């Protein structure tokens, strides 16, 4: 049983003020639009209870599961919000599992800072990855994609 610990930081600047960026994390409909919905995935369930101690849970089927992993593949995500400071900071702990087997636990912080008329977002993740050293690279790539989708979501809803 090996565990790999790793951390990464991603910074983005959005041309949108902090309250609107924050709302895209806080509002279940908005969050679902950029965080969960996506090509190649079938959403089986999604719920968000955005408050300190509240949870976010999702289950989504990876449509290329058979060709990638050789079996029908369902990913699950469970999040607990440790701290929420309106318009400024969100800290959460989350697990990921594949077909019911947990493969990572992470601690993440999202910091929002005013930058001109927009927002500088700093995403930091610390993770314990159980499925080998590649886990963190895939995770960072996944979050870069999500933060691009957040950018597109903010632009489309300006």
């Amino acid at each position, binding site marked *: *049983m090996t*565990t790999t*610990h790793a*951390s990464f930081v991603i910074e983005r600047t959005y041309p949108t003020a902090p309250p609107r960026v924050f709302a895209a994390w806080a509002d279940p409909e908005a969050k679902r639009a950029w965080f969960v919905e996506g090509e190649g995935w079938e959403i089986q369930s999604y719920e968000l209870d955005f408050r300190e101690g509240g949870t976010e849970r999702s289950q989504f089927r990876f449509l290329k599961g058979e060709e990638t992993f050789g079996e029908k593949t369902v990913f699950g995500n469970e999040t*607990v919000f*440790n*701290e929420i*400071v309106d318009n*400024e*900071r969100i*800290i959460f*702990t989350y*697990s990921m599992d594949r077909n019911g087997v*947990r493969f990572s*636990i*992470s*601690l993440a*912080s999202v*910091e929002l800072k005013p930058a001109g008329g927009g927002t500088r977002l700093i995403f*930091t993740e*610390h*993770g*314990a990855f*159980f499925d080998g050293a590649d886990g963190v690279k895939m995770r960072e790539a996944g979050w870069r994609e999500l933060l691009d989708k957040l950018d597109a979501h903010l632009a489309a809803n300006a």
Partner: protein
Amino acid sequence: MTKRSTTHATFVIEREYAHPPAKVFAAYADPKKKAKWFVGPEDWEKSNHKLDFRVGGKESVSGGPPGGPVHYYNGEIWDIVENERIVIGYDMHLDQTRISVSLGTTEIRPNGAGARLIYTEQGVYLDGYDDAGSRERGTRELLDQLETFLNT
């Protein structure tokens, strides 16, 4: 208004115990056992330690020096592999102020007839709270107390 800031830090502590992994694991898993060693310094005033040892279960304890601020520990268990691994996410408050959120991984491996324990803590310290190494020192003290507990 609080000036918001974060400091991210990771530390690793390794220990070797002359006790097999199952015994070390039990010192974490059995609430009566963990309450014996997972406590603050002797002169502190303390609350009861509470532990519901299952994935999704909670752990809490608080305490502090007489007349000083109260340290509140509130954890949630995220992963358990019997005799091998425990992952706990936890918050610390000093009185009403949240000072940190952390992820702690305890790995236990066979080491001859004993066990090697590797504790990795990844955390974020909040709003100018200056840890200055005290979390790591405190954790080392706890692992000393674990050793004393295992030896008795």
